[in-house]
């Protein structure tokens, strides 16, 4: 019964989304209050219904209800309980349901917390959100219905793809989806602004927090996915320029640009048209990512199913929304009033540079991702665009961005003084040069590029620190007042500084882990040792262990530093019995910010094994930097300045006359 209620609730949500797509937008255009008033309660109701639906599917997974086809295909009674739950979104249908759940969640959030958004804007925004929801609910019910039943029900399921049976899966997709789908609301805001023909101060004010929210989760989701690939795939890599990864990087880049251009719009009323376009592009890139992942165009871990019907359907959604919104843009954007002039050297100018570089790098990733696909479609030739392409395009674009980054927040609005700003960055420059020289001296002058990269990371961190410290004015007001001022700085200021510091931290991690990593691939027998950097690993042999639904060949390693045992690790080669599928469980030991990484390859009859051992200096900084960025986003989001009051209605409605 619960399963069927879930199914019915999903259908009701579909019908409500249709109502939502029509009435509020119509009301907003014609000024009909009643129709506009429909939007908030219907948004809440849609969230409730999709929530019921999701809960019902989760229930079916939790109780191993094999009368549900989706559960049979993706679950197994012997699976640990946690993975029964995460299995809900570890497959195509369930993950699309999660997608839709987050879509309607954002609609409900705007309905609940958007009282101070102008009524027409809110109604039109929720209406556009309703259209997106309708498209995806229809997609779900027509091509990927998770509630199809089987009778008689089989006694056992097919198990979940073992590679996805991992805590990483419990966290990675929901985070990523909140990010991806979160940009739908900025898209809806942009489309609503175009429909209404006005982008005003309130629009700029209220778009930014939603962008920030989506951006934070996308940052965390990408970081989580990268860490998951790092420890689960057993290659020691954390970014492969895999199309699926690029699909999440593109909206991140344009979303970051949007975050910055929205500041200009809010503070100075400039860049209106551009900001609206970015909002449309960001969600379009999210949709493109969904299409790439879901259509089976790419064959990878992420392509759960290859089904041409689904691919065509998503391509249709993509075409309608991207094409439709761009057409709307072309038609309505000229109506938007431009405002706020500024000199090239100014905060606005710096943010435009930021936008320029971020957008161009997003284009570079876009080309690198789609060119091989396009070529394959046209000429049938299969080429692969690997890291070299991205290192040559994306890398050089990031360097000026990172160099310019500390200047931006220090420049004044309208007209900035580059010379004065440079003076305040002397200390940061000194630190960066010192770091470069130190690394060059430690690692040899032939590694000068890596040393420069390292210095660049320090430059970004020190520059952001210099900016936040200069705001406290320790020199003028003394230590205690300065500290008080520092604490009292607005959340947005701290958020910006931490966001930039996070980038610097990630850069340090990337440079160190790429340039200074030590890798060894050896065949090792019990009792033998292998040394990477200053770590000696002694192999204690292999043992077989049985888990709930897998068998492990577990290797044991003692890690010695200077002859003293400091740690041990048990990497494993795992075989999931239901699907007869092997996975690697890397052994990872963290020392400070660095890690030793061991993964087992081929196992030999004599008890020996082929292993890969890495020493990855400062590798954890990559992900810690992302956490810092997301934390900065959170601080900025909770800035009390966001609490702008709502104006009172112009006048009370009078009762009908006599």
């Amino acid at each position, binding site marked *: 019964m619960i399963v*069927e209620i879930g199914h019915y609730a999903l259908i009701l949500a579909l019908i409500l989304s249709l*109502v939502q797509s029509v009435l509020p937008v119509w009301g907003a255009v014609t000024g009909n209050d009643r129709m506009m008033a429909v939007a908030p*309660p219907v948004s809440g*109701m849609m969230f409730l219904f999709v929530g019921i639906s999701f809960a019902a599917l989760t229930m079916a997974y939790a109780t191993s209800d094999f009368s549900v086809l989706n559960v049979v295909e993706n679950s197994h009674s012997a699976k640990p309980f946690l993975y029964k739950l995460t299995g809900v979104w570890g497959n195509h249908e369930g993950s699309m349901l999660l997608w839709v759940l987050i879509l309607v969640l954002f609609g409900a959030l705007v309905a609940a917390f958007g009282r101070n958004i102008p009524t027409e804007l809110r109604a039109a925004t929720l209406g556009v959100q309703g259209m997106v929801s309708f498209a995806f609910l229809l997609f779900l019910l027509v091509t990927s219905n998770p509630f199809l039943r089987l009778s008689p029900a089989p006694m056992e399921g097919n198990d979940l793809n073992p590679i996805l049976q991992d805590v990483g899966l419990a966290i990675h997709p929901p985070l990523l989806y909140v990010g991806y789908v979160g940009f739908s609301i900025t898209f809806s805001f942009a489309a609503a602004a175009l429909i209404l023909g006005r982008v005003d*101060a309130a629009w700029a004010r209220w778009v930014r927090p939603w962008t920030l929210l989506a951006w934070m989760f996308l940052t965390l989701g990408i970081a989580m996915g990268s860490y998951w690939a790092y420890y689960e795939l057993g290659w020691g890599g954390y970014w492969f320029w895999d199309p699926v990864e690029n699909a999440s990087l593109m909206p991140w880049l344009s979303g970051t640009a949007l975050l910055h251009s929205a500041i200009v719009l809010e503070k100075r009323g400039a860049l209106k048209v551009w900001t609206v376009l970015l909002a449309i592009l960001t969600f379009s890139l999210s949709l493109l990512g969904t299409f790439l992942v879901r259509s089976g165009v790419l064959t990878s871990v992420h392509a759960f199913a290859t089904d041409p019907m689904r691919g065509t359907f998503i391509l249709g959604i993509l075409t309608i929304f991207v094409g439709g919104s761009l057409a709307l843009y072309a038609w309505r954007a000229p109506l938007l009033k431009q405002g706020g002039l500024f000199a090239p050297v100014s905060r606005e100018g710096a943010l435009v540079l930021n936008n320029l570089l971020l957008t161009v790098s997003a284009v570079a990733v876009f080309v690198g991702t789609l060119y091989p696909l396009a070529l394959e479609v046209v000429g049938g030739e299969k080429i692969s665009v690997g890291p070299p392409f991205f290192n040559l395009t994306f890398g050089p674009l990031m360097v000026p961005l990172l160099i310019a980054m500390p200047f931006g927040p220090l420049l004044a609005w309208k007209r900035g003084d580059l010379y004065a700003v440079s003076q305040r960055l002397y200390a940061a420059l000194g630190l960066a040069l010192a770091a470069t020289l130190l690394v060059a001296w430690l690692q040899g002058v032939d590694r000068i590029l890596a040393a420069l990269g390292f210095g660049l990371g320090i430059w970004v961190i020190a520059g952001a620190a210099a900016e936040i410290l200069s705001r406290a004015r320790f020199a003028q007001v003394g230590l205690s007042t300065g500290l008080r001022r520092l604490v009292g700085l607005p959340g947005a200021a701290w958020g910006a500084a931490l966001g930039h510091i996070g980038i610097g931290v990630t850069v340090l991690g990337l440079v160190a882990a790429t340039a200074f990593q030590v890798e060894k691939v050896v065949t090792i027998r019990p009792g033998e040792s292998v040394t990477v950097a200053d770590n000696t690993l002694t192999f204690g042999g292999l043992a077989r262990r049985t888990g709930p639904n897998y068998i492990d060949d577990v290797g044991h390693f003692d890690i010695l530093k200077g002859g003293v045992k400091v740690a041990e690790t048990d990497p494993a080669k795992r075989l999931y019995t239901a699907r007869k599928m092997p996975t690697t469980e890397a052994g990872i030991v963290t020392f400070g910010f660095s890690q030793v990484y061991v993964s087992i390859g081929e196992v030999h009859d004599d008890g020996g094994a082929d292993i890969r051992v890495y020493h990855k200096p400062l590798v954890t900084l990559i992900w810690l930097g992302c956490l810092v960025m997301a934390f900065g986003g959170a601080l900025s989001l909770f800035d009390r300045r966001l609490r702008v009051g709502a104006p009172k209605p112009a006048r009370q409605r009078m009762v009908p006359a006599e």
Partner: protein
Amino acid sequence: MPGMTLWIAFALLTVAAALAVLVPLARGRRGHAPAAAHDAEVYRAQLDEIERDLDRGLVSEEAATAARTEIARRLLAASREAEASGAADAATGTKDKADAAASLPGSPARRGASGLLQVAVVIAIPAAALFTYLALGSPDLADQPLSARLEDTQQNRSMAALVAKVEQHLADNPNDGRGWDVLAPVYMRLGRTGDAVVAYRNAIRLVGSDERRETDLGEALVILAEGIVTAEARAAFDRAVALDPKAVKPRFFLALALGQENRKDEAITAWKALLAEAKGGEAWVEAVRMEMAKLGAEVPPSPALPGPDREAMAAAAEMSASDRAEMIRGMVDQLDTRLSAEGGTAEEWMRLMRALAVMGDGPRLREVKDRALVALKDDPVAQAKLRGLAEELGIGS
């Protein structure tokens, strides 16, 4: 009635959905602030912020003044716009009022537009939902959580359910060797040979190695390899023979392996050794003879004695049903007489019992069982075998 509850739940959800649309549509028009008023509010907040920044010394006095001027200018524009649109709103409001006065509240014309919409909502939402659901859903299928199905006695009888139950138990207690030992032969019977191999391995690891388990493991591996005695299977049979050098089955497979490896002479020697031990009538004897023939060895004549000879069998095949029964009865009597007079092995007694069971001669079967138990009272193993067979034939104890 769970079916009823389901439809009631559907009805409640539908009502909630319709109300979410109806209530705001039906509720009276409330005025709302024009968009420009929201802008004004944002500008006012920005002005406050400048004051705060100035208090904390975050911006200089002249920067603050410049910013204040700019924001104030925008605030002014926004307020003006808000007022204008408010006035316009008021104008339309007055017009509304005039309309309202002209057509009294509740007049058909006024109620028409929004009323029509409301009726459409009330009809369309449930209709569309029901239509879609009936096309896609399965209202008559109840939930079937696995734990409930395993407890359900109806399902319990099916082998698959039993297996699932044991599997679940083993998933929780993977070190229960006896469980694996019980499950393994069941897997074999269900044709899940791969699972049987795993189960036998687990049983051997946890309970210990014995001739039967090793042999069964080997056999499962051979079946898995589609009749080829793999190195792994050989190792299992070797262990079995080491545990019980007299065991026939592992030696049978080892001989087969020799044949497959083209070590003809050794294979033939092994087969011969096996045949020499045959008492005749064993199921495998015929197979051995065929293997030997395949290897081109001289097949020794089938051992004389027990069991009807070829001619008799061929004759039986041509007889009528009653004649055949008569012949079998004669042979059974013959065997019975011989066993009673001279005694015999447990196997011979068991053959007699099976024959009687096939003939459906219950009383005589019981009587023979008792006689056999007496005849073999010194041999506990034979006694156990007889009791086991009696159990199987439904005349236990």
